[in-house]
């Protein structure tokens, strides 16, 4: 157990008990004073009242600092865990939702799940402690009062944990459904708004969204009256408990009248705090379960227990490789890639060319057939080792929202600026570098948004070159480039052939024309291939 957490919890209990103690000690002090004893007899009570008065605030301050430190540390662990899970699954094992949605969900889930500690578990501990201490103190003064207060606390805590929790859960499930319909619909509308407006076809679509908004409002209105019910019940039972103590606690010493009668009122705040905590529970549980689901994401590639290290020399060979992930499969493909060779992969859109590229990088296993690198079967190689030698420049490679330099350093962390400049010049970004006053320090925006399409592609290529791979795969390198830029890009790629084996995935006839060898990929029927190895558990990540 974490020492900070224990210390924080103890301070938290002390803080809440100080609040309870302040009221009860003050009550005792005043009632005792009414017996007109010498002031000296009141000194202990007076000091205690002052101590509790300062204590509650100071203890609470310490508690908040310690427990927040714990929560922040746990968030770091959660982030690493999420990263590990997603990294293992990427890219093929990731759920097929919009990437942005998943990311923003995961980022906020990590934060929400720590609310579980700060705003649910700890308040419960404090309240349970306060109730126990008050009942114990009362037991010494008046067993009847202790019994009443015990029953009163127990009833409130039970209602908080069981009764109301269910109502809140029903409420939040229905509301969450309506909410996700609403945000999905509005996301679609936002991304298609231009088309709908241009075609004057907007009206029927907003109609659906308006319906969803009203539906969500109706669900919430139906369950809205639950919100204050918990606190109302606590107030009601505080009244009943106080009345019961008054009529049943006979024979209490007069000086204790304040303590026994005010005990339920003193517990009012602690008891209300657990109702407050329970309000958050459904959201926290949902966030936790979504994070836990990430543990079960299917892992496309099984890495060998003991990896062989491939001989440095020797190319990549495909022997009847059938590529495919969820749906489309390719016909068996056989080809050998050696340094100096340029192989074009062509085929209809959607046939699985990009899937084949991922298979070459060992991000997806082949559905049948065999790949070898330097004569060693992919299955015996570590994916990391394969990717150190096989580089891939994908269609929509992510550029990071940072500087030119940091984007390039992803491929080679230790490289110096001269090399970075020369590589940028080599891929034709020399003019860009000159234009930018900040040089390598120039930020490129989210996904490279401050660069043009061609510049983005060239930057991705520069990054690929820094990786010093032996085999380079370019997925549609001339897409989105104008004619001159495309011609230049192809010339640049051709200039790499002396040091690398090159694979060009393209449907452009002019690009295929430069290749030594063209492999045409056709779609295969499902029956052509072996069943997917290791049928993965169908884990759908729900983002609702």
């Amino acid at each position: 157990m974490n020492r900070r957490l224990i210390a924080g919890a103890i301070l938290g209990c002390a803080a809440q008990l100080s609040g309870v103690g302040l009221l009860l000690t003050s009550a005792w002090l005043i009632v005792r004073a009414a017996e007109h004893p010498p002031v000296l007899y009141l000194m202990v009570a007076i000091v205690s009242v002052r101590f509790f008065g300062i204590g509650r605030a100071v203890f609470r301050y310490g508690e908040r600092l310690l427990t927040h430190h714990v929560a922040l540390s746990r968030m770091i662990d959660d982030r690493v865990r999420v990263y590990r899970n997603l990294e293992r699954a990427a890219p093929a094992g990731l759920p097929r939702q919009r990437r942005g949605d998943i990311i923003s969900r995961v980022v906020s889930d990590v934060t929400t799940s720590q609310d579980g500690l700060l705003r649910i578990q700890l308040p419960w501990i404090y309240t349970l402690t306060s109730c126990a201490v008050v009942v114990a103190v009362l037991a010494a003064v008046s067993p009847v009062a202790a019994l009443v207060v015990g029953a009163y606390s127990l009833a409130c805590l039970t209602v908080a944990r069981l009764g109301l929790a269910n109502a809140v859960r029903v409420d939040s499930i229905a509301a969450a459904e309506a909410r996700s319909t609403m945000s999905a619909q509005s996301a679609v509308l936002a991304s298609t708004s231009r088309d709908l407006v241009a075609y004057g076809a907007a009206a029927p679509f907003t109609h659906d969204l308006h319906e969803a908004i009203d539906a969500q409002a109706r669900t919430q209105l139906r369950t809205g009256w639950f919100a204050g019910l918990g606190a109302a019940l606590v107030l009601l039972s505080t009244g009943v408990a106080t009345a019961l103590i008054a009529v049943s606690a006979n024979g209490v010493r007069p000086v204790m009248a304040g303590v026994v009668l005010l005990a339920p009122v003193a517990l009012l705040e602690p008891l209300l705090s657990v109702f407050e905590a329970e309000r958050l529970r459904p959201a926290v549980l949902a966030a936790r379960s979504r994070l836990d689901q990430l543990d079960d994401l299917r892992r496309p590639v099984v890495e060998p227990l003991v990896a062989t290290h491939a001989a440095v020399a020797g190319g990549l060979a495909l022997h009847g490789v059938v590529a495919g992930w969820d749906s489309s499969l390719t016909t068996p493909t056989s080809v050998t890639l050696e340094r100096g060779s340029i192989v074009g992969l062509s085929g209809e859109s959607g046939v699985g060319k990009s899937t084949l590229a991922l298979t070459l990088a060992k991000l997806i296993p082949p559905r049948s057939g065999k790949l070898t690198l330097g004569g060693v079967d992919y299955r015996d190689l570590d994916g990391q080792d394969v990717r150190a030698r096989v580089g891939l420049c994908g269609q929509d490679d992510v550029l990071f929202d940072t500087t030119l330099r940091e984007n390039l350093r992803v491929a080679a962390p230790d490289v110096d600026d001269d090399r970075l400049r020369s590589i940028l010049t080599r891929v034709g970004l020399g003019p860009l570098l000159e234009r930018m006053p900040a040089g390598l320090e120039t930020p490129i925006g989210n996904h490279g948004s401050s660069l043009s399409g061609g510049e983005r592609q060239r930057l991705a290529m520069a990054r690929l070159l820094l990786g010093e791979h032996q085999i380079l795969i370019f997925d549609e390198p001339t897409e989105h480039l104008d004619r001159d830029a495309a011609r230049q890009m192809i010339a640049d790629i051709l200039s790499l052939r002396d040091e690398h084996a090159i694979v060009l995935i393209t449907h452009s006839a002019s690009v295929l024309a430069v290749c030594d060898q063209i492999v045409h990929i056709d779609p295969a029927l499902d029956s052509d291939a072996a069943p997917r190895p290791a049928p993965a558990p169908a884990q759908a990540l729900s983002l609702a």
Partner: protein
Amino acid sequence: MKPLDPRLVRRSHGVRSLLGAIAGLGVLSAGTVIAQAIVIATLVDRMFSARPLVSTAWTIAGIFAVRALIHWAHSTVSERAAVRVKAELRHELANDLLDSRRIGAAPDPAAVTTIMGPGFDAFDGYVSRFLPQLVLTCLVPPAVIVTMFLVDPVAALIVAITLPLSIVFMVLIGMMTRDKLSQRWESLERLSLHFAQVLDGLVVLKLFGRRQERSLIDVGRRHRDATMRSLRLAFLSSLVLELVATLSVALVAVSVGLRVVDGGMDLLPALIVLLLAPEAYLPVRQLGMMFHDSTEGAAAVNVALDLLDHDRQTGHQSAPNLRTSDIRIDRVSVQHPDRSMPSLLMSDERIRPGEFIAIVGPTGCGKSTLLDVMLSFVRPTTGQITVASTDLRDIDPDQWRHQIAWVPQMPGLVAGTVADNVRLACTVASDTHIRQALDDAGAADLPLSRTVAEDGLDVSAGERRRIAIARALLRVRTGGASLVLLDEPTAGLDSEREASVLASLAMLDATVVVVAHRPETISAASRVIALSTPVEATV
């Protein structure tokens, strides 16, 4: 941050009626709080002096029951108001999303999704909890202090001095730590951004073998330590509030206790004062705890109001017939406020009915921007587009677009079937027409009944574009449009399909303007307009 955004009160009927109802319930609530203190004090007094207390006991149960009822009504009213206000704003946002008079960028899907979905949850807390608590805070403490004054002026004075003092301290410390707090938010944003980027770039990082555990831990620790430093200050404001609140209760307790000892005060008033003192601070303390709700909720309100805040087209003139009128582009430039260079800079051009024009130029010269201007989505910064001597900005945008078919670079698809998506162009078109349009768009292989998921997630980029081309063809053939604007429509198509698309476009009875970089497309055009990259010096 203002605790209550006046824009919200002005805008929302729901918020105004909530404030009224809550004020009424707040007065009742203050009454029961005072009654409760008096009756409990009486009860203790009677037990102390061994007088009969059964009727007082049941009175206290009754008062608590009334208080419970008021509390319940209070939260139900607030909750319902929050729901209503939220629905009001959401309806407004939904309408705005497809506002055909919007000028400038389309709404950011990420912001819209958040605000229409989970982002507005924070708003619940703001309207249903923070605002009502704000009202209670204005009502209950004064009532309590007045009552205390009637019972014991000395104790009332302690509270009356310390309560405003604690608020002043809290605000002062809040102001002192605001920078720290905003630094903390920035640091949190940076951390989330870093994490999001790592997740976003998973594949690239994996391809290059850069594992990120170490950096996640390092960045996380740095953030944690920075956050702890600022929390030490930030929690000070609640420390002060709590300290003043509990310490003054202790002060009141000791002061009345000492006066009771020497007979200067009776037990009953002493107990009343003791029980009332914490009630004066409670609403303020709760308000402080809800500050979190309020900042998030106010932020959500801000995002919503910002989304609604944009320029709108004001033109109402009817659109001239594009079959007979030229489109004159007169020294049009477009300058985005956040860029140093203009996005588009053109000299004079004239597009005549029936022409097939290719727009060419290097990347970043504003080809797509020109189409946006012609669609009335963007207003020229300088210069103008005129049609039959009417300025485009004076023309009703809906009417104007009625004559236009448009194929953007990344066309939007709606959930439904392929046929549904093509039919957007002309709702009365028959399946035969739609089939024909798809065939001519090089999409003969796409069945009409094939389903399209939300946002076209299951449709490839090439298919998406061909569906959009079919949409445009249909718009001209059966929808009567006479101007076709296309943005690189043949990117991603093989040469056979490209040829068939270009042939279909050439045969249309319409003016065609196509942004192109593929030689095949350019050579199909009857005229080429070349744009050049705008240079800073010319503006």
